[in-house]
């Protein structure tokens, strides 16, 4: 039976909205959306890689190494975006008490953590040839590192609690507290970075980016986005099966 709350029978759209809050009903929908997203991700990735590796010109200062940006920046964008979406599902779950919302938050976390790792890995490999060291304490990398800890904490808390309901709700609250803190963390790290290194030792490209570079980054970002949706939906299907 549907788990979602039908608030009176006041409107059809309300019923339809909560209709999909039931894990059973959502299950097949998730499957079809996921299939489309896998295909979209593959196509967008091919397009993005083509633009990034073939079309975009060699950089005057960094040569070919700058091409790491086509992975690094989109991955960083996704890591932050997924966290916000995860916290959003957590908030919906706590507000409306719908099981599926919590499951979506759980499903997003590993993918988000993975993109955070990718951002850190590519940032590190980009830093070595450009700045000489494998780790650069610039604002974005440091913030990404803390974001990784936030993701891992979310997953660890959920894993540490046996009761599924308490686990869902506790990690949801943690995600929301984390989300509120992320802007504060980001700005304090930015300030810390300027204090300790003066001129910005940033891995960000200068604003005057060639149009092709921007296109490449956007295509890869969309590719990662489609991938994330697909991965999260497949994972949530697993979670539904495991719990129901």
């Amino acid at each position, binding site marked *: 039976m549907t788990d979602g709350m039908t608030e009176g029978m006041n409107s059809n759209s309300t019923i339809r909205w909560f209709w999909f809050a039931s894990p059973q009903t959502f299950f097949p929908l998730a499957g079809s959306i996921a299939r489309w997203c896998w295909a979209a991700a593959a196509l967008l990735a091919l397009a993005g890689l083509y633009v990034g590796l073939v079309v975009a010109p060699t950089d005057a200062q960094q040569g070919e190494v700058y091409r790491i940006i086509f992975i690094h920046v989109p991955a960083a964008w996704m890591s932050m975006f997924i966290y916000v979406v995860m916290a959003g599902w957590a908030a919906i779950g706590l507000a409306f008490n719908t099981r599926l919302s919590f499951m979506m938050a759980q499903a997003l976390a590993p993918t988000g953590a993975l993109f955070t790792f990718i951002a850190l890995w590519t940032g590190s490999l980009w830093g070595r040839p450009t700045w000489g060291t494998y780790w650069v304490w610039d604002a974005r990398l440091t913030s990404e590192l803390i974001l990784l800890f936030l993701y891992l904490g979310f997953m660890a808390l959920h894993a540490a609690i046996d009761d599924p309901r*308490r686990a869902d709700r506790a990690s949801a609250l*943690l995600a929301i507290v*984390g989300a509120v803190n992320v802007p504060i963390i980001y700005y304090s790290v930015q300030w810390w970075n300027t204090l300790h290194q003066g001129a910005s030792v940033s891995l960000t490209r200068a604003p005057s980016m060639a149009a092709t570079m921007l296109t490449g980054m956007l295509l890869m970002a969309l590719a990662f986005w489609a991938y994330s949706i697909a991965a999260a939906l497949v994972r949530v299907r697993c979670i539904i099966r495991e719990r129901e």
Partner: protein
Amino acid sequence: MFDTARCVVQRDLLLALRRRSDVATALLFFVIVASLFPLGVGAEPNLLRSIAPGVIWVAALLSSMLSLGRLFAADHADGTLEQMLLGAVPLGVVVMAKGCAHWLVSGLPLVVIAPLIALQYDLAPGLYGVLALSLLLGTPVLSLIGAIGAALTLGLRGGGVLLALLVLPLYVPVLILGAGSVEMAGAGLEPDGQLLLLGALLVLAAAFAPWAIAAALRISME
């Protein structure tokens, strides 16, 4: 409502007094951690002077985290916490009172002991005031944010370490601002910006943390 709050504070202070060793251990940890760094990095005075604000602040963070386990554990074990949840007084008020008592016993002493450690690091005398003020503003924030973590991890196996993982990332802004203020003052610049921001964090935490702590307690106690 304020009577209840006062009662809770007095009760917690009395309990802490009876378990003096628990309190003293966390403070001793603060001193020990700060003493370890010179042993690790060498006792060169210039180096120590430059790392002093950061080391003292990190030690304060770790000590604060250690003491958080105590915040709800005892009341949870003997059933008092359940009574607080069911009581007529808003849980937020009770939680604030417990947080205050906890800070008085675990945070405020850090503010007092820090200058002694600064002495070990040969920190310039003019910076003691900024150091103490930054800790005075920052340690309550640490207590409040940490209490959220303590409430979430109530009664869990591996609680202490898990609490650390959850709470340390959230501590980062306080650390950056706190240590940064002392470093700014050390460089001859005005630390006002950082201290004001710390104050702002304190106000934010005092406003929102009690709600989050209460919600976390309800989740953990269902």
